[in-house]
């Protein structure tokens, strides 16, 4: 895409990165997404809801395609579908995890159908292969000004709500029984968090795509939780990591023409493996 390749001059590189409007949009949206994904992801890992995040992101695929189909913004479609799925999960009344046989079969069935539905929507508006890849694996092209504004509004509102309910949510996540005894509205919090998760997934999908959500929502938080047990530090670290992965991923994708999803997943995965190797007891680095 750019005329010149990257050099060792960081200032010149940043100027190169910012010379096109689409890249400014991608970086703006990416920054908001990474911050929200960092915070929300921390609670996802803490509460063991990564399978729910996975499911919500796959429901987002038909959502995004439907948004394009009716000539609205794909982000709007994502938000509507993901929030709907979160409410549905909440209505079922049970936490979604991969532990129960019938529930995971149910989730599997929903996943297959939602991907099939997304494929239908893409075909209906005559979308190209590139269009499908953009939904599934993310893109740095085609994030419009309206998408950036929506992302900004959603991220701001969600982070504000998370900041407000952060303390009781932490309590409810770590020790639900004691929290109920102390009068914390655990069920309400749980539903509120599912909705926050749905919104986070909806805007994260634009950058990394439906299939690679783990890279931004789960991996930084999982790495942070390995490194520190203190919540404040953990959340901060999770945000910093997801920001770094996103910025580096976007920059690398810009200069190499390789999809951004590949770089973000690879960075996140490499860091997670490195952290596990360093912190795991009896690992290569620290023989028992």
């Amino acid at each position, binding site marked *: 895409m750019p005329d010149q390749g990257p050099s060792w001059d960081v200032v010149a590189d940043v100027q190169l990165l910012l010379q096109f409007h689409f890249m400014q949009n991608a970086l703006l949206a990416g920054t908001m997404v990474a911050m929200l994904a960092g915070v929300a992801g921390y609670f996802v*890992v803490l509460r*063991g809801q*990564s*399978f729910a995040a*996975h499911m919500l992101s796959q429901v987002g695929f038909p959502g995004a395609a439907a948004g394009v189909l009716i000539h609205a913004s794909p982000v709007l479609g994502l938000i509507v579908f993901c929030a709907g799925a979160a409410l549905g999960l909440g209505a079922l009344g049970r936490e979604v995890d*991969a*532990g*129960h*046989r*019938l529930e*995971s*079969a*149910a*989730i*599997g*069935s*929903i*996943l*297959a*159908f939602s*991907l*099939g*539905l997304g*494929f*239908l929507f893409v*075909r209906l508006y005559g979308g*190209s*292969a*590139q269009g*499908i*890849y953009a939904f*599934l*694996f993310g893109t740095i092209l085609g994030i419009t000004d309206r998408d950036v504004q929506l992302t900004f509004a959603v991220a701001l509102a969600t982070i504000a709500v998370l900041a407000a309910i952060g303390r009781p949510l932490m309590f409810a996540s770590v020790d639900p029984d004691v929290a109920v005894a102390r009068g914390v509205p655990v069920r309400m919090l749980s539903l509120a968090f599912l909705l926050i998760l749905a919104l986070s997934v909806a805007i994260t999908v634009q950058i990394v795509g439906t*299939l*690679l*959500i*783990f*890279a931004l929502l*789960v*991996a930084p938080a*999982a790495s942070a939780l390995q490194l520190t047990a203190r919540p404040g530090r953990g959340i901060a670290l999770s945000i910093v990591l997801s920001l770094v992965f996103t910025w580096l991923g976007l920059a690398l994708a810009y200069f190499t*023409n*390789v*999809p951004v*999803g*590949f*770089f*973000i*997943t*690879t960075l*996140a*995965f490499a860091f*997670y493996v490195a952290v*596990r190797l360093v912190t795991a007891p009896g690992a290569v680095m620290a023989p028992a």
Partner: protein
Amino acid sequence: MSMFALEFMRNAFIAGGCIALAAGLVGYFVVLRNQVFTADALGHVAFTGGLGGVLAGLNLLAGVFASCIAVALAIGALGGRARGRDVAIGTVFAWVLGLGVLFLSLYTTARSAASGTLGVSVLFGSILGLQPAQVIVGSLTALATVAVMIVIARPLLFLSIDPEVAVARGVPARALTSLFFILVAVTVAESVQAVGALLIFALIVTPAAIAQNLSTRPWAGMALSAGIAVAVVWLGLTLAFYVALPVSFLITGLAFALYLASNFARRMVRVGGLA
């Protein structure tokens, strides 16, 4: 015009039927043993493996089979320890998929832009575009899977329902588990052509979930699961012949509708039983 007058429709019915039979049978045990996440993961691996195979100048199918079997053996070697660690597994498979994206972009830039649909057909299947050789390979591996599955069904059922007693009775747990993982891998690999790496659930998990809703008896459940999978594929193909909708969507949609209906039926039976 009859749809069977067309060679590609005949091919789709033969290959789709055989693959669905295998997927329904293997899927019954996937759901019974609570390994849905593994099937999902193998679907991701199939995407990367297939594109990697093509990129390396090999056959797409060779890449799919090799990568799925290798990963299935690795998961089997991890054994029970991998269970419940969905953060670790999810992160690994997001990366595998990310690698697939790299392969895809390398492939599309290496060839003309028109070949960009290869990835889509791996992800969503192209059952109507099967080559005669693919039909033969797909059908034969599927039938072989069914045969092995029938042979090991009884000890595997025992092992899945009551592992401790089964081991005490001398059922070779490790060998049987590894063999089962290989069968899942082969099923995922052969289904990639028909429904694609992402929609594998529709043939492996959904018919099995329906069968579990309708019957608690294992043998009836297995037969139901296999029968429903075949019926869904054939119905989807028939509908696709008359309606201008993608086959993948029709197959997943039919399966999901049946699943909802079976949930409803189960609830009705339960309410009726109480009254």
